């Protein structure tokens, strides 16, 4: 079967800022494909090109065999979209929004059933502006599905949801996939990608770092443990980097972050004790997909800032 989405050497800049340097990947029928990466690395720009909202400056995109810009009319019929922070008029009711959007499509889904599926049936007469963040998000997912799309692109699906709502949404997405919809999920939550995605494209600085299954990514990274502490006195990094169990030592202000295998904690604490350095505010974390990302992109030094900074260019 041909790929549902085929992106080849996508390149996009805004004035002199390069948003997407070189991105290629394919999405197979029926899979949940994750586009993962820190904020501001070109994830949203990539999917906006797929949705036909932006014109690429270079490269090729095919969605269901269609050109997103040229075959717009046909594509919008078959591609469901959930945009990052886009809203509805405050005074529009849930039921009205679903009914309105379903009237745009030639094969709409039953919007009442969809409303029920998303647990919004008792909110039917509620205005968009009066919905909670989670309910607005669910409505936005319902609207992405109301045209019975073959492909759904969901951008920052669970951002702003509480943990319970997030888990409910994940269940829902698995249900949608079970009905044969191919899903592209843009996220910066590693946990979400681990839970939902069949395959993940790691994007960093406008490039695809790697495409693999979530498990495959964690394996590649072999990230082990991460140990953080505030040393009582400054010391030479060599003390720790010489240890066979330690792979990396970095400084964030006066906090030292040590990455290593499962024996690293033991090794580090004994060396510190031997040199009479007290490790204050000691914290140990197991490696996650997040560490895998850091390991795979080689971005340790500014990794902390990677996850918080950005949005300086507005949309990313």
């Amino acid at each position, binding site marked *: 079967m041909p790929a549902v989405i085929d992106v080849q050497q996508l390149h996009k800049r805004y004035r002199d800022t390069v948003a997407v340097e070189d991105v290629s990947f394919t999405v197979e029928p029926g899979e949940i494909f994750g586009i993962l990466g820190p904020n501001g690395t070109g994830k949203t720009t990539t999917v906006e090109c797929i949705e036909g909202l932006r014109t690429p400056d270079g490269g090729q995109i095919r969605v269901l065999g269609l050109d997103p810009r040229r075959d717009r009319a046909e594509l919008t019929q078959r591609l469901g979209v959930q945009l990052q922070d886009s809203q509805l008029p405050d005074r529009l009711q849930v039921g009205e929004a679903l009914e309105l959007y379903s009237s745009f*499509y*030639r*094969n709409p889904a039953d919007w009442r059933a969809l409303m029920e599926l998303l647990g919004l049936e008792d909110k039917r007469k509620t205005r968009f502006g009066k919905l909670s963040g989670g309910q607005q998000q669910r409505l936005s997912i319902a609207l992405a599905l109301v045209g019975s799309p073959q492909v759904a692109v969901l951008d920052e699906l669970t951002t702003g949801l509480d943990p319970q709502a997030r888990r409910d949404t994940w269940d829902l997405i698995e249900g949608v996939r079970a009905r044969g919809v191919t899903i592209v999920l843009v996220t910066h939550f590693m946990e979400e990608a681990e839970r939902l995605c069949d395959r993940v494209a790691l994007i960093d600085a406008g490039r695809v770092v790697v495409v693999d299954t979530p498990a495959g990514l964690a394996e590649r990274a072999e990230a082990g443990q991460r140990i953080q502490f505030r040393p009582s006195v400054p010391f030479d990094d060599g003390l720790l980097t010489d240890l066979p169990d330690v792979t990396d030592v970095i400084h964030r202000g006066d906090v030292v972050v040590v990455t290593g295998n499962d024996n690293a904690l033991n090794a580090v604490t004994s060396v510190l004790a031997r040199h009479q350095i007290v490790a204050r505010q000691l914290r140990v974390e197991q490696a996650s997909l997040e560490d895998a990302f850091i390991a795979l992109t080689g971005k340790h030094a500014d990794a902390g800032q990677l996850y918080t900074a950005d949005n300086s260019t507005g949309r990313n």
Partner: protein
Amino acid sequence: MSVMTATPPAAIRRSALLRLTISELKLLLRERIRIFFGIGFPLILLIIFGSIPSFNRPSTTFGGYTTLDIYIPVLIAFSLALLSLTALPMALAGYRERGVLRRLQTTPAGATRVLAAQLLVNLAMATASVIVILAVARIGYHVFLPRQLGGFIVAALLTAAALMAVGLLIAALAPSGRVAQITGALLFYPMMFFAGLWLPLASMPSGLRHFSHATPLGAAVQALQDASAGHWPHPLQLVTLAAYAVVLGLAAARLFRWE
């Protein structure tokens, strides 16, 4: 997949515009402040003017017409301007700011259709407002209905078109709903001055009057007053209004940003 579906795309597009228009109309009716501004506010001014005894006496300055006769076209222009210069751009720029337009761009309906729906709803509201003003003036204050009705309708439609083009241009250029609202309000007062809200056109010195006639609302009021008095509006004013509608409308279409 669904090449065989029964509904042809053109029908879907038509029905999408219809649905969007109905939906925008519902939203408008829920927004009482807009109704007040479009219809209530001019109506209150009409009642105030109508209650001033001297406004109801024929005046030689106005060729035997009462001051109220002269003011009805001004109030109509006032109502159309309030709708087109403040309510319309605020709604559209707000939609853009909140991503409503972007969201619609990703559906088969497209965002152009919601603009069209907004214009239709605005036009409906303008029509309602004109009818209410004329009816209240006729019933409450014995002001004659426009004697040249055809000319009056043409002038009113061109006025609405010219003003909505100004409103669209504001919406195209304003970065936010708030800025759109303020810009509209700032344009509204000088434009209303040239419409003769404070100083009737007929009482203006001739240089000022000529300048007024070159502004959208000055041309509008002159054309509406002529039609009310039973003459076909002067082509110069109709052409002026049409030119504003076309030039500013095209500029707005070129400059409009969807996000």
